[in-house]
C-alpha cells in the first residue's frame, strides 16, 4: 500500500497540520506569554525524573574496572570502556619510531585544529606538529553545529551572567575554573575569529546579530546563518593548511603510549586503509577526539558525525585518566522525526530561538520553547509517550510539531531562507517546505556532557587528582565544563577555548621539556588483565572507530577467508 502524499507529508498527517494552522495566529499574538509555561526547579526535576532517558531505569551500569570504578555510566559506554584492547601490544615495536614530533594532536576536528594553530602561534614550528585523525581533516561534529556560539559581548550582558547561565544549565555540577575560562575567554575567541575572516551575521556597525539559546538569560548566540559550525571549521582548517600543519587522515590513534615515569609519550596510530601501525613519540599529546553520539545510547538516533565513537575516552581511561559526568547524556530536543531519511538529524535550536513554538498534535503549546535542553527533551517525550498527543510517522516514530512558519510571520517573510538555509534545503530535498508547513521533531542523541577531566590549563587529570604535565584535552572529549547539561552555543565555544588552552599549554611543554621518558604500552597489558578478571567476552574490543550499519541480510552471509586480509 502506498500512502497518498501531499506536499511531502502523508495525507493523514495533514489533518494534524490543519489543527496547527488553526491555532497559529492566536499563538503568534500571545508569543510573549509563552514565558508563563516556564517551569520551576521542582517541576523540572519531576519531569526529568520521569521522562528523561538518563533518569529512566535500565540504561546504565556501574563500571567494574579503572579509575572510575563504582561510578555509573550508560551501558553502551561501559561496553567500550570495559573491553579488550583492539591492539595487541606485543605486535608493536616501540623502538622503531615513525614520527618523532613536538606535539601530537589526536583528532582533526575543531579542538584539534585550534590547538594546532595556537601551538604554532606560540612558536612551535608547523612541521613539528602532527594532527592524526580518523576521517578527513574537519570531519567532526564541529562542522555540523548550526545555531551558533555564545559570548557575552553586548553592553547589557556580561561574562558573569554567561557564567551563571552555564552553571544553572549544568545543574551546578560544573567545575568553576573551567566555566570561568569558558565565559571569560569567549569574547576573545570571537575577536580571533573576526581576524581569521569568519563571516558572522552582523549589523551595519559590525555588531553581531545575537539570538536566544535555551537556558540563557541574554541573547548572546553569534551565528553565521545556520552554518555556524561549518563556517568556523572551514576557516580554521584553511588557516591550518596555509600554515602547513601536517595532517594524517584515516589514521586514528588506537592506543596512547605511556612512559616509564608515568607520563603520556605519544600514541599508536593505525592506517585504516593499509592496516599499518605508526609509532608517534611526542613531547606533548593533545586529545581532541570528540564525543560519543555514534554509540546510539538507549537506541536513540543521533545528530553526530560518522566517527563519534568515544575513542578518546577509551584510550585515556586505559592510561589512567579520570572521567567525569559520564552519567549525563545530552539529547537534543529537536531531531528530525520525519521523513525517515533524515531521522535523528539536528534541527537547530535557532529555529526555536527565532520564534517557532513546539506544539502537539492538536496545535497546542505545551512547554516553554527555550527551557534547557534536557528539560525540553523530557517534555517532548512526555507529550509523545505519556499524554499521547503526538503524531505517528509511517515507520512508527512519534513526534511533535515545530511550527516553523511562525518564523516567517514573526521575523518577516524570507527570514527562514536568510537565517536557516541549511534547514530549509534539507527539508526541500525531501519535498517539505518548512516556510509553509511545520516540521516533525523528537529528541535525538546529541552530546557528551562529561568526559576526560581537565583543569583550566587543559591538562588531563589523573586518577589521583594530579594533572599530567604532558597530556591535554579540548572539545567534546573533555568534561567538567558543562556539568550535567550543556547549553546551546557552548560547544563551539568549548572547543575554541580549551583547544586554544591545550595548544598554548603544549607549546609551553615543548619550550621547557625534552623528549618524554622510555615509551611503553605496559598500561594496556595491565588493563587487559583487569578485563580478563571481570570476564569480558573475547569479541568485545575497543576503540571501535566506526559504527557498523551493514544490513542484517548481508552480514548473515559474511565470511572471512584467511586470504587477502
Amino acid at each position, binding site marked *: *500500500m502506498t500512502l497518498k502524499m501531499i506536499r511531502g507529508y502523508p495525507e493523514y498527517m495533514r489533518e494534524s497540520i490543519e489543527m496547527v494552522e488553526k491555532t497559529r495566529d492566536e499563538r503568534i499574538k500571545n508569543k510573549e506569554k509563552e514565558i508563563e509555561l516556564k517551569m520551576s526547579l521542582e517541576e523540572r526535576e519531576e*519531569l526529568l525524573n*520521569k521522562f528523561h*532517558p538518563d533518569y529512566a*531505569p*535500565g540504561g546504565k551500569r556501574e563500571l567494574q574496572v579503572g579509575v572510575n570504578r563504582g561510578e555509573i555510566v550508560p551501558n553502551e559506554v561501559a561496553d567500550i570502556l570495559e573491553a579488550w584492547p583492539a591492539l595487541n601490544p606485543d605486535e608493536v615495536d616501540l623502538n622503531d619510531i615513525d614520527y618523532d614530533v613536538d606535539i601530537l594532536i589526536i583528532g582533526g576536528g575543531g579542538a584539534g585544529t585550534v590547538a594546532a594553530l595556537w601551538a604554532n602561534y606560540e612558536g612551535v614550528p608547523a612541521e613539528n606538529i602532527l594532527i592524526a585523525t580518523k*576521517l*578527513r581533516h574537519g*570531519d567532526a561534529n564541529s*562542522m*555540523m553545529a548550526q545555531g551558533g556560539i555564545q559570548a557575552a559581548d553586548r*553592553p*547589557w550582558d*556580561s*561574562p*558573569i*551572567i554567561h557564567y*551563571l547561565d552555564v*552553571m*544553572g544549565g549544568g545543574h*551546578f555540577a560544573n567545575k568553576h575554573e573551567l566555566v570561568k575560562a569558558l565565559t*571569560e575567554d569567549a*569574547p576573545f575567541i570571537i*575577536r580571533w575569529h*573576526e581576524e*581569521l*575572516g569568519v*563571516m*558572522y551575521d552582523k549589523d551595519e*556597525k*559590525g555588531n*553581531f546579530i545575537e539570538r536566544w539559546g535555551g537556558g540563557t538569560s541574554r541573547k548572546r548566540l553569534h551565528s553565521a*546563518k545556520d*552554518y555556524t559550525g*561549518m*563556517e568556523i571549521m*572551514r*576557516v580554521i582548517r*584553511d588557516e591550518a593548511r*596555509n600554515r602547513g600543519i601536517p595532517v594524517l587522515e584515516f589514521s586514528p590513534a588506537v592506543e596512547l603510549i605511556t612512559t616509564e615515569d608515568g607520563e603520556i609519550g605519544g600514541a599508536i596510530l593505525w592506517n585504516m586503509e593499509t592496516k599499518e601501525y605508526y609509532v608517534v613519540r611526542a613531547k606533548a599529546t593533545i586529545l581532541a577526539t570528540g564525543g560519543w553520539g555514534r554509540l546510539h545510547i*538507549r*537506541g536513540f538516533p543521533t545528530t553526530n*558525525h560518522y566517527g563519534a565513537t568515544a575513542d578518546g575516552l577509551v584510550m585515556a581511561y586505559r592510561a589512567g585518566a579520570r572521567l567525569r559526568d559520564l552519567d549525563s547524556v545530552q539529547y537534543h530536543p529537536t531531531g528530525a522525526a520525519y521523513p*525517515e*531519511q*533524515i*531521522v*535523528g538529524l*539536528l534541527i537547530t535550536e535557532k529555529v526555536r530561538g527565532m520564534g517557532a513554538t513546539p506544539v502537539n498534535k492538536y496545535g497546542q503549546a505545551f512547554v516553554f520553547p527555550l527551557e534547557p535542553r534536557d528539560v525540553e527533551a523530557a517534555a517532548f517525550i512526555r507529550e509523545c*509517550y505519556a499524554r499521547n498527543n503526538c503524531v505517528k510517522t509511517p*515507520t*512508527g*516514530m512519534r513526534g511533535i510539531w515545530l511550527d516553523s512558519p511562525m518564523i516567517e510571520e514573526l521575523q518577516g517573510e524570507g527570514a527562514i531562507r536568510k537565517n536557516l538555509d*541549511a534547514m530549509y*534545503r534539507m527539508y526541500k*530535498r525531501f519535498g517539505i517546505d518548512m516556510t509553509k508547513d511545520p516540521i516533525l521533531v523528537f529528541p535525538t542523541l546529541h552530546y557528551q556532557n562529561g568526559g576526560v577531566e581537565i583543569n583550566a590549563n587543559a591538562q588531563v587529570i589523573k586518577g589521583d587528582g594530579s594533572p599530567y604535565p604532558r597530556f591535554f584535552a579540548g572539545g567534546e572529549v573533555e568534561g567538567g565544563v558543562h556539568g550535567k547539561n550543556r547549553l546551546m552555543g557552548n560547544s563551539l565555544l568549548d572547543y575554541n577555548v580549551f583547544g586554544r588552552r591545550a595548544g598554548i599549554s603544549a607549546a609551553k611543554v615543548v619550550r621547557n621539556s625534552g623528549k618524554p621518558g622510555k615509551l611503553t604500552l605496559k598500561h594496556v597489558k595491565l588493563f587487559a588483565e583487569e578485563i580478563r578478571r571481570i570476564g569480558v567476552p573475547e569479541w568485545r574490543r575497543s576503540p571501535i572507530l*566506526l559504527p*557498523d*550499519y551493514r*544490513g542484517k541480510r548481508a552480514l548473515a552471509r559474511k565470511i572471512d577467508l584467511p586470504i587477502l586480509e
Partner: protein
Amino acid sequence: MGKKVELLDVDSEKIMEEIRKAASPPEEVEHWVTIYVMGKPYKVPAGLTIMKALEYAGYRYIRGAGCRAGFCGACATIYRKKGEYRFRTALACQTTVEDGMYLAQIPFVPANKATYDLDKVKPSPNILLEYYPEIARCVSCNTCTKACPQELDVMYYVQAAIRGDIKRVAELSFDCIQCGLCTLRCPAEIQHYHMAQFARRLYGKYMLPKSPWLTKRLKEIESGMYEKGYEILKKMLEKEPEKFKELYINRVREKEEKRIMNPLELEGED
C-alpha cells in the same frame, strides 16, 4: 512558581524500549529497488538514502561518509539513471535511492589550494585572479552550477570573482560544503571552492566591520573588572550553594535591548 506538578503514572523504562523500537530499522521491507554500485546490482529497500542503501547492501564506509547530514561534502556522488545519458550529482546522505541508479562515489578531490598569509594580502580587485589565475579561463558553460548539490550559483560567483567583486563571491558561495563536484566537472579546471574560501575570508576579515561592543568588552576583561565577580560566585558556590541557586533562578531575563547592567552588582540584579 507554585504551579502544580503533573504526576503521571508511567513506566519510564518501558517508554525507553518503545523509543528504541521506533528508531530501529523495520523488520519487514515492503518495496524494493535495484541499484548498481559501481556497476554491481544490489536489491535494497526503497526509501533509503544512497548512503544507507550501500550499507544495507553490505558496504562499510571508511572513505565517503562524514557528517551524514549534508554539511561536510564527504559523500559526493556521481550517478546516472537507467536509460539516460546525463550524469547527475548528489550527496549520498541527502538523496533517496531510485530504481536503476548507477552510482559512483568520489572519495577525494585532488584540487589545488593556494596558500596565503591573510594578514599580508589585501582585498584588492585583482587578488582572486592573482592567487587563482585559472578563473579567467571560465567559459560560462554553467556545468559547475548544475553539478552543485547545494544548488548554489557557482558560475555567477566565478564571474563575480573575475570582476573582483569579493563581497558577491562571499555571499553567493556561503553555503558551499566544499565537496569538490564543481571542480571535477569544470572544463576550465577551476578550483571554485578553494577560491571562494579565500574570498570569504577576505570579506570576513577586511570588509565586515569589527564589532565595537566586542572591542569594549575585551578592554573590560583585560582590565580585570570581572575577576571580583567570579571570585564572589566561586565562594558562594562552595559555601552557600543554596544562595547560588537562588541567584540563578532569580536572574532577570533580557527584555529590553538597551538595558545596561553592571555585573558587579549581581546581587542587586533583581
